[in-house]
């Protein structure tokens, strides 16, 4: 399964959801969906904007974990 580690990366960068929302240019509601692992798909443009805002790699935000 795909795990979103956006909250971990946000904590590392000491950035709030509101600030990230402003920097990335997506709504707080959508960012919240992504952070809470409720998203079913992520656009490349969103990933690009988040990686740029947090200065990190895609693998820092999204991770694949084998289901047991």
């Amino acid at each position: 399964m795909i795990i979103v580690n956006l909250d971990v990366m946000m904590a590392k960068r000491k950035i709030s959801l509101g600030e990230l929302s402003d920097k990335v240019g997506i709504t707080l509601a959508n960012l919240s969906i992504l952070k809470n692992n409720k998203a079913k798909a992520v656009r490349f443009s969103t990933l690009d904007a988040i990686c740029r805002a947090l200065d990190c790699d895609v693998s820092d935000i999204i991770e694949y974990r084998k289901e047991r």
Partner: protein
Amino acid sequence: MLKINRNLSVAISIVMTVIMFVGVVILAFYAPSYLSFLLDEGGALGGVTPFQRAFVYIAVYAVAALMLSGLALLFALLLLVRRGKVFTPAAVELIRYISWCLILIGVILISLTFCSVAALFVGAAALFVGLTVRVVKNVIEAAVFLKEENDLTV
């Protein structure tokens, strides 16, 4: 072409549903008198056995009950439409129940063929409409899935 406001259109549907509900209640209230008129010797559907007579009464009231339930479900569906919540699992569930109401009405009416051939045609029509509503439910179910996927794409 005459263009009707969307909200007005929903309001008209709600009013029509309520009028039909009241109509069915009135028809069910007077059912014994017109059924006895039809089923009595010399009536249009005369010559039925007491068992068949009882069956006709039960079937007519079952159809009325199903119609009232279907209309109540339609009313609930229209309220969802008015609130802009058409493509939700709740609406799909309501449409599913409406289709079952129609299918059951069709089956009951077909079972009344023994006293009138017209019941067969009306029953078949109800069955067809029920099936159509069921297919519409399948379509809306697919739309709900697509909408949910779209809403959860960030």
